[in-house]
């Protein structure tokens, strides 16, 4: 089983190591501009890693780009929910924001374990549990073919429980991925309007670093919602997604 899990992590093999190391060196020397570009290069090479997003957020924060930094850290936290350093950085950055907003939720309350597990971890757990149930079924089939008696009741129940548990965790993982609709305002200030186009009324103004949830989207605009229930449309250029798999593009 351990071997299986390790094999499953083969897809997470090392990529983007060179630009990442270069970015860390640049960050240590205080060259935040080069650090940010190196971290971005690592991302482009496929290194969607919490350490990369952590470093990218730090370099952007040093450059005064609080909004993109918040987006980068939020992505890092999505990949490593138990990373206290990233969470502490976000807390510090939030103190300097103009809008005092509750960050949007990242999963349903019923799937509480998703707050401590990354999608990769819960995916591995789900696959391992389902595989265990299936391996027990294979063992039962082998017993039949070898003219041995059926498996004991406890073993059969283990297979059933393991399989159901795996399916439940898999379901929660899919749901958590679907809930991943967060975004961060990266413009200094943006009006949130009631409708698309000139007919829309300005409802409220959000400032850089505000964390929102995206409910709907067009080619040019996104319908955002706040935790307190307020909704409105903003231009897509003012937003940066917190989904780690989305491209990380920061306007210069």
């Amino acid at each position, binding site marked *: 089983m351990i071997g299986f899990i390790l094999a499953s992590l083969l897809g997470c093999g090392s990529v983007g190591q060179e630009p990442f190391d270069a970015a860390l060196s640049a960050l240590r020397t205080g060259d935040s501009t080069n650090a940010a570009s190196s971290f971005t290069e690592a991302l482009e090479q496929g290194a969607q890693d919490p350490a990369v997003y952590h470093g990218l957020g730090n370099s952007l924060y040093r450059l005064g780009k609080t909004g993109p930094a918040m987006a980068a850290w939020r992505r890092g936290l999505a990949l490593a929910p138990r990373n206290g*350093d990233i969470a502490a950085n976000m807390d*510090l950055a939030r103190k300097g924001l103009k809008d005092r907003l509750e960050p949007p939720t990242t999963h349903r309350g019923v799937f509480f374990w998703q707050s401590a597990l990354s999608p990769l971890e819960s995916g591995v757990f789900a696959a391992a549990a389902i595989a265990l149930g299936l391996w027990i079924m294979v063992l039962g089939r082998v017993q039949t073919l070898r003219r041995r008696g059926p498996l004991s009741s406890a073993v059969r129940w283990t297979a059933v429980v393991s399989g159901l548990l795996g399916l439940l965790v898999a379901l929660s993982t899919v749901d958590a991925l679907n809930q991943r609709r967060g975004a961060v305002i990266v413009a200094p200030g943006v009006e949130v309007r009631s409708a698309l186009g000139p007919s829309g009324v300005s409802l409220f103004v959000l400032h850089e670093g505000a964390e929102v949830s995206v409910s709907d989207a067009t080619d040019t605009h996104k319908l955002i919602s706040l935790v307190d229930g307020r909704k409105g449309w903003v231009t897509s250029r003012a937003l940066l997604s917190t989904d780690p798999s989305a491209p990380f593009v920061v306007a210069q």
Partner: protein
Amino acid sequence: MILALIPAALAAELALQIDTRELVVGQAVPVKLQVINGSVSGRPELPVGEGLLSQYQGSSQQHVMVNFKSTRITEYTYQVAATQKGVWRVGPVDLLVSGEPMHADAIEVAVGDPPVSQGTDPVVATLSDERPYVGQVVVYRFQFKYDRPLVNARWTRPEFSGFVEEVNTEATQREFQMMDGGRPYTVQTIEVPLVASGTGVQTISPAALTAQFQAERRNKRRRRRRSIDDLFGDSPFGLHGSTETLTLATKVVPVNIQPLPMDEQPADFSGLVGQFKATMKSGQTQVKMGESVTLEYTLTGDGTLAGFGLPKAPDGAGFRIYDDEPEVDTKLADGRFRSRLTLRRAVVPEVVGPLTIPSIDVTTFSPKQQAYVTVSTRPVQLQVAPGEEGGGVVTSYVAQDADQRTAVESTGEDILPVSRAGAVGNRTLAAAFPYLVSGALFPGLLWLLLGIVGLVSGRTIDPKTILKARLKALPADPAQRLAALESLFRDAAALRLGVAAPSLSLEQVEGIGDDAAALYADLERVRYGGGDADELEARVRRFVGGS
């Protein structure tokens, strides 16, 4: 040694005992004069003050053994009745006990006002002032009078409309043994201190009392009824049960609460309503520079002190002041509310020479005078002498052993760096998804494959296993069990011979062995009612197990 201890163990003593030291006019209490391990000649006299009357009741003797030591107590009982208000003494008593002069100290007894006369009413409710001012403390008194043996009594509080109960003082309950025309009776009182809070005419609702008396005997019914019976009436259950329950209620108490005069109210009015007096005293009149002197400020009165705060200590006039936490003590005594505030303040002189600590002025409202009154203390005079070297600097040695450390102050905040410098990669689920799916599906595919293999090869579960499983699940009904056993035998025999079970014959079974043939024959016989079925089952089990 033992002989030396005997006189000490038997040393005579004289003691005076009284149940309570607070009486009211008309109340009588027993007083006991105890002579321990001794004897007196004649009947001792009990001297009492002018406001008391003493009457000898009798004497008794008892012996008690404690730790193998015998103690003889002679007890003389007197009934002491209060006749005048005031503080009076019971005793002292000087006697010759076994020839030795002995002395018992006097006891001081405070005699207060008697309960209000309630005539024939068994319960009454009164208020100490029916026209109080807002903020004034009044005492609500509930009185219950009875002259029958009381088993139990429970009272229900009325609603004190327009009042709040004084927060620092609890209601008190007292009991008085009284005499009326030579007849004893008991009065129980419950007193509740209240603070007037509303204004205008208010009404305190009736207080209810449920009392259980010991029931009268039947023949007592023929006697002339006593006054308490006339008041209460006979309970319908009184003649049959052992107790008689009565529910009594007081009348409502009307009260008119007056507002404080607002026109003349001084700006520094402290909120205190009542009669107050204040004192301030110092433990010493001379103090050295650099040392402190403690002043004690006391405010006593009959008003509530809840929420009262002293005026800010005067500072900067040649001295500094440090206040302790004030102590507030309140009580109900003799039906009146008493309050007392004590504050200790440390005064640290800052100049050498004569120093005057100014008086403390508290503006109160006096319901008695119907005016605002300033309650002042006298100023305190101190003589400040030059101190030792370094005088003028107050040195405190109190906290030398305390923890001198302080919390680390934050000078700034910053983001936390990347702590991991290992290999990075794609940590998204999408990257690992193919591996995860294949890892999970592989055993599923293997399971399907094995199923197909089993189907194709026609290999199913071992028939012997099935036979054994059937053997474990034999029916309970004897006829069905026998049929199942026969079927099991035939299937096991057919399996051994490699023929179909339905076409099995005795000749074919004989090919397996004599035991099998005998079992076959016995099964046939038992089916028609002969032979031992239990013994047969054991043989079938052995045959199937052996196959």
